Structure formats: structure tokens, C-alpha cells
């Protein structure tokens, strides 16, 4: 059996990751699941979470948010709404985004009736920021 898995993480902004791995752990809609070579064809939607890529050079991480994943013929294709490799995450920017989202949420709940604030969107932004930090943390970028 072929012992290699080709993983591609693609968003509408292009190919974020492409390469052979020994295995990959992805945030499926029903929880994290691991894919090894020889996996049966699978289609699942993706939650917001961290993808772990077991490459020959060590583990790599990517923060993804929503989308779908297909496993077929030892190829794993993640079509993510958003994806960022941990090594490319700008921690400063993520923290800013997180603070902005927190401020918006705080204003929405504590401030005088502010209907203009889209709390769903702010909550999503916060979740995504936390997720990116999580990925960066796993990659050992937070010290």
C-alpha cells in the first residue's frame, strides 16, 4: 500500500500548503479526526481548528476556519474558507484582531443598546483569532 499521503490546503486565496505527509489531524465538523495513508474516501465539513501535518521534517500546523475536506486516493484536499500556516501567522496582528473583537463584543453587551454591532461576526472573528493563536502556540511561536 502506498504509504504517503498528499495533503493540499487550498483557499480562494490560493494554495496554502501542498506536500506529502505521514498523517494529518484535522478539525472535522464532528470533532478532530486523524487521516493516515490508505484511508477510505471521505467527505466532511470542517470546523474552526488547527490542522496538524505530520511531515518527515516534523510537525507543522495550520489554522483553518470552516470549509470541507475530501479524502480520496491518498489525497487529502482541504478547501478551507480561511487557512494560515502557523509559521506565517503574525502574532501581533492576531492579537490586535482579538482585541478589536473583544472590544466590539464588550460594547455590544455592556454599552447602551448598540444594534449596529454584529455580534455573530465579532464572535467569529474572536474564535478565529484564538484559533490562530492556538496554532502559533502549538508551533512553539508563543515561547
Amino acid at each position, binding site marked *: 500500500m502506498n504509504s504517503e499521503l498528499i495533503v493540499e490546503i487550498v483557499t480562494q486565496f*490560493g494554495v496554502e500548503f501542498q506536500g506529502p505527509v505521514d498523517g494529518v489531524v484535522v478539525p472535522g465538523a464532528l470533532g478532530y479526526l486523524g487521516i493516515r495513508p490508505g484511508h477510505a*474516501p471521505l467527505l466532511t*465539513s470542517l470546523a474552526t481548528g488547527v490542522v496538524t501535518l505530520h511531515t518527515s521534517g516534523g510537525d507543522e500546523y495550520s489554522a483553518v476556519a470552516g*470549509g*470541507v475536506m475530501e479524502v480520496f486516493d491518498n489525497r487529502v484536499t482541504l*478547501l478551507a474558507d480561511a487557512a494560515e500556516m502557523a509559521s506565517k501567522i503574525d502574532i501581533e496582528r492576531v492579537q490586535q484582531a482579538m482585541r478589536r473583537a473583544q472590544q466590539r463584543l464588550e460594547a455590544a453587551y455592556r454599552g447602551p443598546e448598540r444594534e449596529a454591532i454584529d455580534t455573530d461576526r465579532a464572535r467569529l472573528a474572536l474564535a478565529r483569532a484564538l484559533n490562530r493563536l492556538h496554532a502559533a502556540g502549538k508551533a512553539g511561536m508563543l515561547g
Partner: protein
Amino acid sequence: MVSAVQLRRVQEGVERRREYFLRLSEILARISSSETPISHPYLREPGPQRRVGLVLAAGDRGLCGSYNTNVFRATEQFVRGTGCPVDVIAVGAKAVAYARRSGWNVIEAYYSLRDVQETEKAAQICREIREYFDAGGLDSLHIVYTQFVSISRHVPTLQQVLPIPHDIAQAEAPVEYIYEPDAAELINTLLPMAVEAELRYYLVQSLACEHAARMIAMTASSDNAEEMRDNLVRQLNRARQQKITNEILEVATGAEALGHL
């Protein structure tokens, strides 16, 4: 020159969206070839066409050669050939103006094709277009856009978007997937994603073509202007020399007549 810079940026956008769109359509093809029956309005059999929707994607401005004209010609042909009412969704200022002038039923007008470069605006436009089909009333949805083959080759193209044509949604070997959470839910997520990715891909190509066409048109007109200037300078010099020669001749003749020579 401005167009050249913009073109490079948009061209990159085309490449990126192609990657995403191609992978999504491959998955779609495998799903629809599977034995598990899928029923979804996007995959229904084509029935009688009583009312069709058409997305018309053209430029925001002129001065880009025959770019807009070519799209309009293709659109005209389609509208005349359908034999049923056509609801037009126009994208691009020139598209809106043309559709209105032609007296078509314009149900939505997006004045700025440039917006398809911006992620959120593009997502919104494509979602709204798809929702026109969801609302019912349309038997099919088509698009006339300009295919970006290369910087110098732009092909006005008519494509059926919905229901998803069967020749596209067909793979060679059937694949039986494990679906998580379940097939219906996944297909409900995947199909709208695919349709919107397709629309985005087409629209961004139209934009790339507009920039490329403008660049070519402007280069051609610069060349023409330069040639004209060269000709005019030559004419001017010739006229000046002629005049000087004439004056010398006159002076010489005058002097001769006075007997100085």
C-alpha cells in the same frame, strides 16, 4: 501603465481562484458520479425553460477596444436564442448601461466589476446571484463572461451555471464516500460553495480581461499617436525647409535683378 499594474494583481487573483475552483469541481464530479442518489435543486434535470436568468459581466469603463462589444454581442445572441423571458443580472457599469438600453429586464445591477477583487464584496455579489436562483422562478441561470486565456487572448463565453450541467458533474469512476456528518448536509454546504466559487472565478476573469484589453488598446493608441506625431514633425520640417529655400531663392533672384551678382 496603470492597467499593467492592476492587470498583474488581477491575474494573480485568477490563478488563485482557479486552484480553488478546479479542486471543488473535481470533488463535485466525484460526488455526483456516486451510486448514492443525490437530489438537490442545483442538480435537477433541465426542464422546459419558461424564464431564465443571465449574468452579464462586462467592464466598468470604455477605452478597452472591443472588449465590451464582444460580450454584448454574445449576450444579444443568447437573449434572442432563448425564446423565453430573460432576467438580467448586470455586473459592471457598462453592462448595466447596455442591458438597460437594450430594454432587457434588469433585476439586479452591480455597477462595479472591480469589486470582485475584494473578497467580501465578491462573496456578497456571488451569494446574491445564487440566491436569485434559490428564490425560484428561474429555470436556469447562465453567465456571459470573458474567459482570460492569456494577456492577449480573451474569449467571450456563455456558460450555464445552474442547474449544474451534467457533462461537468460527471467523473469516470464512481466513488463511494463516507459522509460526515451526513450526505445531505454536506451536499447542501458544498453545492452553494461550488456555485459561488465558479461565479467568482468567471467574474475575476472578466475583470482581468478588461484590464488586459485596456492595456492593449492604450498601447495601440500610444503607438498610433507616436506615429502620427512623427509624421507631423516630418511634415513640419519639410514645410519649414521649403519656406527657407523659397526665401533664399527670392533673395537671390532679387539680388540678381539689381545687378549685384
